[in-house]
């Protein structure tokens, strides 16, 4: 049986690598004083960066789900569904990059590529949904990560349709409604993808700890529903400033605050966490899961504060938001993806020396990411002070004033590309070796 899942994972790793590279190129624009045209202009680099990184995360999620569920059944229909999903997904990816490289794009932020390529994405997701349901069947009781994966797939499909409602003038001509809808989509789409990725983390934890009872516990389901509830109703915290219906803001504020439960629970379980860290520390897939856990603390803490409108008023529209977005996509999503890649691709660090070297790289990556986020927050604070008028200067004077932070951001971003890139290339190469992959 051909392992389609691992093909998706390889594509995902390549996309993440591309995301790092385009991000690095885009960051250099901050030091420029003139516009560059063509593919190397910021206008193309930003969407290339965002799409590569985000599609990489989605592709990885689908890849891991595939690896897990393809073992359950191997009928003709399974194969047909799997191959058609892969084919459509690859077509969409090629189309998207073609669209960026030829300058034929223009659309919603994060989804600028020619809308025609949304069609294969949409159809491939429908096929993936059918494949998922077919492989799992309805006979047995599903555990929590199986529910999370289903949720992710369904909500992706639902919000993806909403993502293109702007094609109708009814929505487009009402600016406020249109922006509300746009951020409903962005919020829920991220939530949907997180369900898929956190489901993968749950799966890994079950396998590593060898305890499969947790995945059926009421508490696990309660936490899953808390996540789902937030996915559905917290997106209004992106648009506190937008003069839309007030009730949307109140709902978002109230719902966002329910996540304090998750935050408090982490500290409640602190001792258990430390014990678990010690127990599995030398198992490399676990190492990245551990990293993701700690990034959750930092990012959730930040997110909770930023979801309070009175604080959001000042952080909004600054690089503090970017720090949060990158903190979650790199610190949480990508760490989980690396953990899962290490788990499924199974490279073994035979000698003590390689283990040590990789440990060194691991810790350097975490440290670089932390300082990288701090540099973004530095840029953000500069802009926040400017926005409230504490610094009486023009926009370009403000950017000048923040040039030291900007330089730090560019340098650390470059280092991040090198160090994360190392792990990604390493995994891609290992995955190509025979009999490595399970």
């Amino acid at each position: 049986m051909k392992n389609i899942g691992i093909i998706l994972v390889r594509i995902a790793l390549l996309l993440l690598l591309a995301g790092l590279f385009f991000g690095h190129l885009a960051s250099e624009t901050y030091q420029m004083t003139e516009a560059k045209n063509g593919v190397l202009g910021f206008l193309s680099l930003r969407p290339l960066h965002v799409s590569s990184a985000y599609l990489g995360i989605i592709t990885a999620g689908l890849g891991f789900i595939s690896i897990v569920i393809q073992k359950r059944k191997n009928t003709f229909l399974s194969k047909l569904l799997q191959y058609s999903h892969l084919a459509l997904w690859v077509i969409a990816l090629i189309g998207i990059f073609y669209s960026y490289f030829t300058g034929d794009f223009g659309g919603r932020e994060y989804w600028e590529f020619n809308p025609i390529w949304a069609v294969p994405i949409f159809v491939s997701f429908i096929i993936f949904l059918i494949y998922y349901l077919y492989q799992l069947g309805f006979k047995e009781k599903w555990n929590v990560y199986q529910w999370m994966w289903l949720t992710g797939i369904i909500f992706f499909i639902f919000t993806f349709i909403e993502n293109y409602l702007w094609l109708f003038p009814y929505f487009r001509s009402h600016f406020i409604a249109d922006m509300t809808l746009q951020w409903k989509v962005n919020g829920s789409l991220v939530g949907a993808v997180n369900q898929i990725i956190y489901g993968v983390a749950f799966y890994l934890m079950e396998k590593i700890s060898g305890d499969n009872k947790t995945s059926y516990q009421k508490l696990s389901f309660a936490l899953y529903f808390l996540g789902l509830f937030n996915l559905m109703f917290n997106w209004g915290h992106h648009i506190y400033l937008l003069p839309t219906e007030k009730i949307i803001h109140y709902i978002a504020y109230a719902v966002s605050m329910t996540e304090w439960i998750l935050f408090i629970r982490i500290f409640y379980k602190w001792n258990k966490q430390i014990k678990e860290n010690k127990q599995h520390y030398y198992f490399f897939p676990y190492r990245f899961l551990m990293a993701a856990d700690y990034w959750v603390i930092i990012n959730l803490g930040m997110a909770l504060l930023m979801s309070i409108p009175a604080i959001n008023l000042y952080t909004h529209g600054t690089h503090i938001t970017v720090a949060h977005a990158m903190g979650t996509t790199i610190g949480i999503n990508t760490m989980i993806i690396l953990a899962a890649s290490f788990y499924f691709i199974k490279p073994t660090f035979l000698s003590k020396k390689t283990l040590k070297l990789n440990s060194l790289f691991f810790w350097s990556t975490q440290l670089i990411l932390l300082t990288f986020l701090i540099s973004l927050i530095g840029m953000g604070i500069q802009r926040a002070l400017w926005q409230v008028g504490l610094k009486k200067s023009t926009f370009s004077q403000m950017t000048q004033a923040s040039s030291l932070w900007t330089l730090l951001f560019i340098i650390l971003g470059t280092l991040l590309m090198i160090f994360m890139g190392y792990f990604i290339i390493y995994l891609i190469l290992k995955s190509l070796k025979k009999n490595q992959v399970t």
Partner: protein
Amino acid sequence: MNLNIFQQPRKVFIILFSFFFLFSLWIYAIPLFSNYQKPVKESKSIANGRLVWQKYNCHTCHQLYGLGGYLGPDLTNTYSRNKENETYLKGIIKSGVRQMPKFNLTDDETRELLAFLKDVDASGTADVNSYQPEINGTFSLKK
């Protein structure tokens, strides 16, 4: 705490999803009940202007209500800041400034984009100074 309900995930999922679906329908209906009616012709220009904004990806570097890219300034109220001088806005779009490239818009596109920016500007303010934080963690427009 009684968590028994969570033993029936299908039920909980369907209940939550139904609420979400109703919430979504209400969001789609906002244009119907909010007092935001515009003459048809103007409304068409604005809708097209939104497309021009998207076609040229102004959001890559600019924000509206703090949403969008970070390389350039927020443009929510740029129209009223430069009201007397639409030519200033047209000039910047045509010739670019610092990292902003030149854009070759047709006359119609420029007119529609400005109609859009005018409409955005009229919808409210994105100036942090116009708001004040409240004790319950929200904020409101200064009187």
